[in-house]
C-alpha cells in the first residue's frame, strides 16, 4: 500500500519541474513571438481586441515595404521610411567600431596582464568605471563637443563614441584571459627563436582566438543594440538601425506591422553571426586548459 503512494508522489515530482519550466519559457519568449506575429499581420489584425494570437492570415507585405520592395499605400502616403539606409549605416558603423576596439583594447589588455607598472590597477579600474556611469549624463556636453569637432552626424563620430561601450569589455575579458595563458609558453617561444612580436602573433593570438571571438561578439551585440548615441549624436545621414525603427512611429499613425518587421530584420545579422561564432568558440574551448 505504501509503495504505490510513493510511486505516485515521485511521478508528480518528476513532472512538476518541466511544467514550471515550460510555463516560464512561454512567458519569457512571448514578446519575441508577439513581434514575429505582428510583423506578419495586416494593419487591421494588429490592433484587434481581444488580440489575435493565431487566427489571422499572415502576409509578407510589411517586410516588402520595409525593404523598399513595395510602397505603402494608404493614409495618404504620409509615412515613408527608408529603412535600408538605416541598415546600411549600422552595417558600416558597428564592424568598424568593433575592429577599432580590438585594435586599441588588445594591446592594453596584454600589457596589463604581462607587465607590472605603477598605477596598473588604477588604470584598470578606470576602464571598468566607464561602465558605472550612465552615458546619458554626458550626452549634452558630448553633443556640444561633437558639433565643435564636426563629428556630429558622421560615421567617425559614432565609431569613436562606441568605444565607450566596447573598450572596457575588451580590456576586462582579454586581460583575464591573457593572464591565464602561462607565461612560460611565451618564454619558450622566445627561447625557440621568435621575437616578441612574433610570439604575440604566432602564439598568444592564436591561443586567444576563442576568447577574442567571444569578446568581439559581445562588443558587436552591445554596439548594434545601442540606441542612445545614435539618437542624439546623429541626424539624417548616419542614423543607425535602432533609431530607424522609431521612424515607423509618426503623428498620424504607428505602423506596428512594419515596425515589427523592421525589428525582426534588425535582429537577423547578429543572430546569423551568433550561429557562426558558436562553432568556433566550442572548438576553441578544448584547447583552453592545457596547463603544465
Amino acid at each position, binding site marked *: 500500500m505504501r509503495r504505490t503512494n510513493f510511486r505516485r508522489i515521485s511521478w508528480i515530482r518528476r513532472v512538476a519541474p518541466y511544467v514550471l519550466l515550460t510555463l516560464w519559457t512561454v512567458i519569457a519568449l512571448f514578446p519575441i513571438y508577439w513581434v514575429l506575429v505582428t510583423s506578419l499581420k495586416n494593419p487591421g489584425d494588429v490592433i484587434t481586441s481581444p488580440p489575435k494570437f493565431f487566427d489571422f492570415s499572415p502576409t509578407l507585405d510589411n517586410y516588402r515595404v520595409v525593404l523598399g520592395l513595395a510602397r505603402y499605400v494608404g493614409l495618404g502616403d504620409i509615412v515613408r521610411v527608408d529603412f535600408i539606409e538605416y541598415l546600411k549605416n549600422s552595417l558600416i558603423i558597428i564592424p568598424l567600431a568593433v575592429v577599432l576596439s580590438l585594435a586599441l583594447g588588445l594591446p592594453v589588455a596584454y600589457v596589463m596582464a604581462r607587465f607590472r607598472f605603477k598605477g596598473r590597477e588604477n588604470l584598470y579600474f578606470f576602464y571598468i568605471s566607464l561602465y558605472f556611469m550612465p552615458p546619458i549624463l554626458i550626452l549634452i556636453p558630448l553633443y556640444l563637443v561633437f558639433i565643435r569637432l564636426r563629428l556630429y552626424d558622421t560615421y567617425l563620430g559614432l565609431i569613436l563614441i562606441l568605444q565607450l561601450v566596447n573598450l572596457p569589455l575588451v580590456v576586462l575579458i582579454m586581460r583575464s584571459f591573457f593572464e591565464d595563458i602561462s607565461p612560460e*609558453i611565451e*618564454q*619558450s617561444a*622566445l*627561447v*625557440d*627563436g621568435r*621575437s616578441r612580436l612574433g610570439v604575440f602573433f604566432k602564439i598568444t593570438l592564436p591561443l586567444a582566438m576563442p576568447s577574442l571571438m567571444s569578446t568581439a561578439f559581445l562588443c558587436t551585440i552591445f554596439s548594434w543594440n545601442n540606441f542612445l548615441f545614435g539618437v542624439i549624436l546623429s541626424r539624417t545621414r548616419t542614423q543607425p538601425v535602432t533609431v530607424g525603427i522609431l521612424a515607423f512611429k509618426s503623428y498620424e499613425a504607428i505602423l506596428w506591422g512594419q515596425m515589427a518587421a523592421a525589428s525582426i530584420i534588425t535582429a537577423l545579422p547578429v543572430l546569423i553571426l551568433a550561429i557562426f561564432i558558436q562553432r568556433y568558440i566550442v572548438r576553441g574551448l578544448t*584547447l583552453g586548459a*592545457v596547463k603544465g
Partner: protein
Amino acid sequence: MARVTLRNISKEYDGISAVRDLSLEIKDGEFLAIMGPPGSGKTSTLKMIAGIESPSSGEIFFDDKPMERIAPNRRNVAMVFETYALYPHLSVFDNIAFPLRSARRGVRYSNEEINKRVRDIADLLEISMLLEKKPAHLSGGQRQRVGLGRALVRNPVVSLFDEPIAHLDARLRYRLMGDLKRIQIERKATILYATPDYFEAIAIADRVVALFGGEMKQIGTPMEIIKHPASAEVARFVGDPPTNLLLARVVRHDDRLWFKVFENDILVPNKTREALDKANFENGVLIGVRPSDILVSRAEMEAPAFPTKLYVAEYFHRKTVLTLSIGAKRIRASTTPDFGGRVGERIWVRFPPDKIFAFDPNTLLVLPASDQPVHRET
C-alpha cells in the same frame, strides 16, 4: 658549444631572494647538474641563463661575451621547462618543429630536413605515433617527452633542462637518462640539468652544483659530492637513505678528542682534530654518518656500540634499510637484503670513527674545510 660564466648572480622577486651571489663557470661541452630541493633557485638560474629573466645583479657571459643586452631569441639556447610549456594549438609535430621554423639570422632549414629531424627525435623518445595529436590529448609523460624533443631537435650553444624526466615511468626514465648522456657526449653539447633528485644528478653529470636557499654550497664531481660533502645540507640531501645527522658533544680526555654520541665516546679522526682544536665547540658539533657505513648486528658489539630499537625494516632488492630509534632520535642504517627484522627488535649499532663527518652546527660547513675540495668561487 660554449663556455658559460656566471659572476655574482643574484635574483630577487618582490624582495625575496631566489638566488644569492652565485658564481659558476660551466666548461664547454660539460654536463653540469644543478641539484637542490624545490625552491632552491634552480629554475631561476636556468631562466637567467636563457635570458627570460634578468639578474638583479651580476653578469652572465657566453664565451666571454656579455649577455646582458641579448634577448632570449638571440642567445641560441634551448630550454625544457618543468611545466613543459607546450604550444596547445599546435600538433606534436609542429611543436617540435617550431624552433626549426623560427627564422633566425642565417639559419634556415628545408622542409625535408625539418621532417627528418623531427621524426628522428620522435623515434628516440618513442612518440612517433603521436605526431598528429595536440597536447591536450596526451598524458603527462607524453607531454614531457614532446618538451624534450623540442629542445633536442636543435643544436644550440647551451641546453637547459628543468626536471625533464620527473613524470615518466621507471623504464623510460632509465632509458632517457642514458640517451641524454649519450647525446651530450656525441654532440659535445654543453648541458645544464636541474633536478631535485640527487640520483639523476650523480648518475649522468660530469660535475654537480649543490644549490640550497639560492646559494651554491658545493661544486664537484659526483664522487666528491657523495664522499666529501662540503656542508651538512649537502650530506643530508644525497644518498638513499640520506646521511644521518646528529648533534654530538666534544669531550677531551686521555689527551685526545672524542665525540660523545649516545653515551659512547668515539675517537675523533685526525683530519677533524685540527679544526676542533682550533675552534671552541662547547655546544657540540653536528656529526654525519652514512647509512651504508654503519655497522649493525643482532649480537652485542663491543664499545663504542650502543643498542637501538628497530622502528621499521624496509626491504629493497639490493639492501635492507633499518630505521632505528634511540630514545626520541632515529637513525637509518642499510644492510644486506636478507636481514629481515621485526619491529621492536634490539639491534646493536656502531659508527666506524673514520667514516664520521663533522659539521659546524652554526654554518653547517664541514670540518675541517682544508683538505676538502670545496668550491666557493667568487
